[in-house]
C-alpha cells in the first residue's frame, strides 16, 4: 500500500478520531498526541489494513483502547487532568452566541459523565454512528448501549433543567 493510497483511506476520519480522543482524554494536546500516535500505528500495520472491511471502525476501536491505556497510565502515575481552559470558541453559529455560556456548560456536564456514557454520547450524538456500529466499536450489546445512552441523555437533561431554572429564578 502506497502512502497516498493509505492517506486516502485513513484521512477522512481523522477528525472523528481526534474528537473521540479529546472526549476521553479531555485535553487538546493529549488528543493531538493520541491522534498522531494512532496514525503511526495504522501506518505500521498498513499491510493488514486491506484485510479490514471497515477501517474506520477499526481505527475508532484502536483510538478507544489507546485512550483507555493513556488514562490508566495517568492514574498509575497520579497525574490529574485539568481542563479549566475550555472555551466554546467555535462561533460558526453566530446567532446563538448568547448561548455560548450554556453550551460550554453542556461540555462540562458531558465531562462529568462516566467514561462509557461519555463515549457513547460522542459516538451517537456527535459522530452519528448507528447503534450496531457503536456496539461493535465498544464490544457491547446494542441494548446495553441504548440503556447507557438513555441514562446519559436523561442525566444531561436534568442537569440542564436545573441550571435553566436557576438562571430564570
Amino acid at each position, binding site marked *: 500500500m502506497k502512502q497516498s493510497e493509505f492517506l486516502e483511506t485513513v484521512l477522512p476520519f481523522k*477528525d472523528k478520531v481526534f474528537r473521540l480522543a*479529546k472526549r476521553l482524554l479531555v485535553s487538546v494536546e493529549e488528543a493531538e498526541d493520541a491522534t*498522531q500516535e494512532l496514525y*503511526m500505528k495504522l501506518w505500521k500495520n498498513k499491510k493488514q489494513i486491506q484485510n479490514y472491511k471497515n477501517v474506520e471502525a477499526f481505527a475508532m476501536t484502536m483510538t478507544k483502547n489507546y485512550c483507555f491505556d493513556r488514562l490508566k497510565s495517568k492514574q498509575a502515575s497520579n497525574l490529574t487532568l485539568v481542563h479549566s481552559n475550555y472555551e*466554546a470558541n467555535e462561533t460558526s453559529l453566530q446567532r446563538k452566541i448568547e448561548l455560548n455560556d*450554556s453550551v460550554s456548560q*453542556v461540555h462540562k456536564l458531558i465531562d462529568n459523565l462516566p467514561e462509557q456514557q461519555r463515549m457513547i454520547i460522542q459516538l451517537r450524538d456527535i459522530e452519528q454512528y448507528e447503534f450496531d456500529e457503536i456496539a461493535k466499536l465498544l464490544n457491547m450489546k446494542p441494548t446495553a448501549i441504548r440503556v447507557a445512552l438513555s441514562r446519559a441523555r436523561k442525566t444531561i437533561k436534568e442537569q440542564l433543567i436545573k441550571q*435553566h431554572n436557576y438562571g430564570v429564578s
Partner: protein
Amino acid sequence: MELANIERLLEKYLNAETSIAEEQILNDYFTGNNVAQHLEEYEALFCYFSTSKNERFTKSIQLKSEKSNWKWLSIAASVVLLVSVYTGYERKQEAKAEALYQETQMAFGLLSQNLNKGTVAIGQLDQIQKTTNKIFKQPEK
C-alpha cells in the same frame, strides 16, 4: 402540530429510541430560530453537538517515526565504536613492534661492540705472531 411532533421525538430521544434521521430533525429544530420557550434548555445541548461536530484536527500527521532515526543513530554509533577499537588495537600493535625493534637494535649494538673488541684482540695476536717470527726465525723452506 410540529411542536407536538418535536415533543414526541424528544421523549423518544431521551429513551434512546430515535433513529439518526429523527435525531437530525431534532437537531435542525433546536439549532433553528423558533424554539418553543419551554424547550429552551435543550437548545444548548443541540448547539453543543453541532459545534462539536465541526471541531477539526488541524495539525499535520507525521508518518515517519522518530524511532527509526534512533535505530540509525545506534547503528552509526556501533560502527564508530568498532572502527575506533580497531585503530586503537592497530596503534598498540605498532607500539609493540616499535619497542621490539628498539630492543633488537640495542642487542645488535652490543653484539657489534663486543665483536669489535674481538677484532682488536685478534690484531694484537697478529702483532705477537710477527714479533715471535722475528725472534725465532723460521727455517726457510
